[in-house]
């Protein structure tokens, strides 16, 4: 307790605590804002490190394919069963293909792919950069005349922003296929009718809006991983804390931005 704390009457201490938390939160928002602006500036200004970008495209994109694919197929299948059950309550089972397609492309494809990436990639980025911070590797990089923002942060931001829409497109296809599998194998839908109904119903914007969301989510996932890793303090414990914060803050920001983007797309 500081001398200033001791001088404050007990009744004001909760107010002081709220004020301190609010200031801390505002400071963090500002700090993330400055970090993201610096990160984006590093993406667009030389020197670039194409080798690092390629490495991140493979690590973030290619190696996330299995987890995203598995998530998508089970989600599509479960969604199909739920919509069939719900639709049956007012004799609307036949709209299942359309609702599955809409739900996957507009919402579940981008959100679930992003959440998988938050768990797999954001945590890995935070742990790697955090460990580099703890072992002075980031300091070493600066003394070797190489900007860590350009070498570490920019390739991860760009790779995740480019790759998540592609992963989402694959998740859309696999998710719809999951619904189709359940419909045809379990619920006795006609395969060709299911595919035709899905194809005729879907509009470009259904898929396109999901891909735009995915690009934003990809940026968020990489940004949170980089930010928390870069600012990790306190050795191994700090790296663990950075990893947790990266995953939690990515997930929350994905859901929050999903709502705001959906609102924006609905009104345009």
């Amino acid at each position, binding site marked *: 307790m500081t001398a200033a704390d001791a001088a404050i009457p007990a009744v004001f201490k909760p107010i002081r605590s709220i004020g301190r938390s609010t200031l801390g939160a505002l400071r963090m928002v500002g700090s993330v804002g400055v970090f993201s602006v610096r990160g984006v500036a590093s993406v667009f200004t030389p020197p670039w490190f194409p080798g690092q970008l390629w490495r991140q495209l493979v690590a973030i994109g290619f190696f996330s394919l299995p987890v995203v694919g598995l998530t998508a197929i089970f989600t599509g299948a479960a969604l199909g069963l739920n919509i069939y059950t719900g639709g049956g309550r007012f004799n609307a089972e036949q709209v299942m293909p359309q609702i599955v397609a809409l739900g996957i492309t507009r919402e579940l494809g981008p959100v679930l792919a992003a959440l998988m990436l938050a768990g797999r990639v954001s945590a890995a980025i935070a742990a790697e950069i955090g460990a580099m911070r703890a072992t002075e*590797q980031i300091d*070493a990089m600066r003394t*070797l005349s190489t900007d860590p923002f350009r070498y570490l942060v920019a390739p991860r931001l760009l790779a995740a922003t480019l790759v998540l829409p592609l992963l989402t497109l694959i998740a859309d296809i696999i998710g719809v296929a999951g619904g189709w599998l359940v419909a045809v194998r379990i619920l006795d839908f006609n395969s060709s009718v299911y595919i035709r109904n899905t194809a005729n119903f879907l509009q470009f914007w259904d898929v396109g809006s999901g891909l735009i969301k995915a690009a934003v989510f990809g940026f968020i996932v990489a940004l949170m991983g980089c930010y928390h890793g870069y600012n990790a303090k306190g050795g191994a414990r700090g790296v663990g804390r950075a990893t947790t914060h990266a995953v939690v803050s990515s997930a929350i920001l994905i859901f929050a931005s999903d709502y705001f983007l959906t609102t924006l797309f609905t009104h345009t």
Partner: protein
Amino acid sequence: MTDIAKLEWRGVRKRFDGAPVLDGLDLSVASGRSLVIIGGSGQGKSVTIKVAMGLVRPDAGEVLVDGKNLIGMGGRSRRNLFSRVGVLFQGAALFDSLTVWENVAFRLINADGVSRKDAKARAIEALARVRLQASVADSHPSELSGGMQKRVGLARAVVANPEILFFDEPTTGLDPITSAAINELIVDQVRGLGCTAVSITHDLASARTIGDEIAMLHGGNIVWRGAPAELDRTDNPYVRQFVDARADGPMTSVVEE
């Protein structure tokens, strides 16, 4: 020796959480000299060299390299200045994801635009200078012992023929034989390159071997400076307590902390 110091801290102040760590530090190193800074834990040794390496921004004062203040210097001028500096970090700070030769050649490839083929040749040549065989070049740092990692760190520091070398606790965590080998390599490289060196260490044997001069830091400023041979002759109370490894003396506050 020239009139302008190669490296100079002028009135440098730095506080962390309100507590002063450097308190108007004045220190200079002449070109081609090797200065070792000794002192108790928490007395600002690391901060002193981190300020000079551009990793910590001081609250006040200047750090001059060849008479040019590097505080606030940015962009190309900063990169140019640091292209003449090499650093050996306490834990070597090698990049885990890169091979040994890629670590050594990191600056050459990523900052100096040297081709990977030429950079690898220069990296292997630098490894030979620190008595490491070319066979380790394709290993990863995690496959090497602590002493070998320090040698790789030293090779990375000297590969671009720097004018200034910083050594942060170069022998910490090493056995006496490996420490002696690292000290010998440091002396070889500093003399071979003719560069200016600043080291920080707790290890008096290391300080006596690698330093032309030794400075003692206490309370954020230099309290004694002299040749290694004077360490045993001086009656400076701080130096006496440190060299004799006594708990009582002017630095008891350090012990109590």
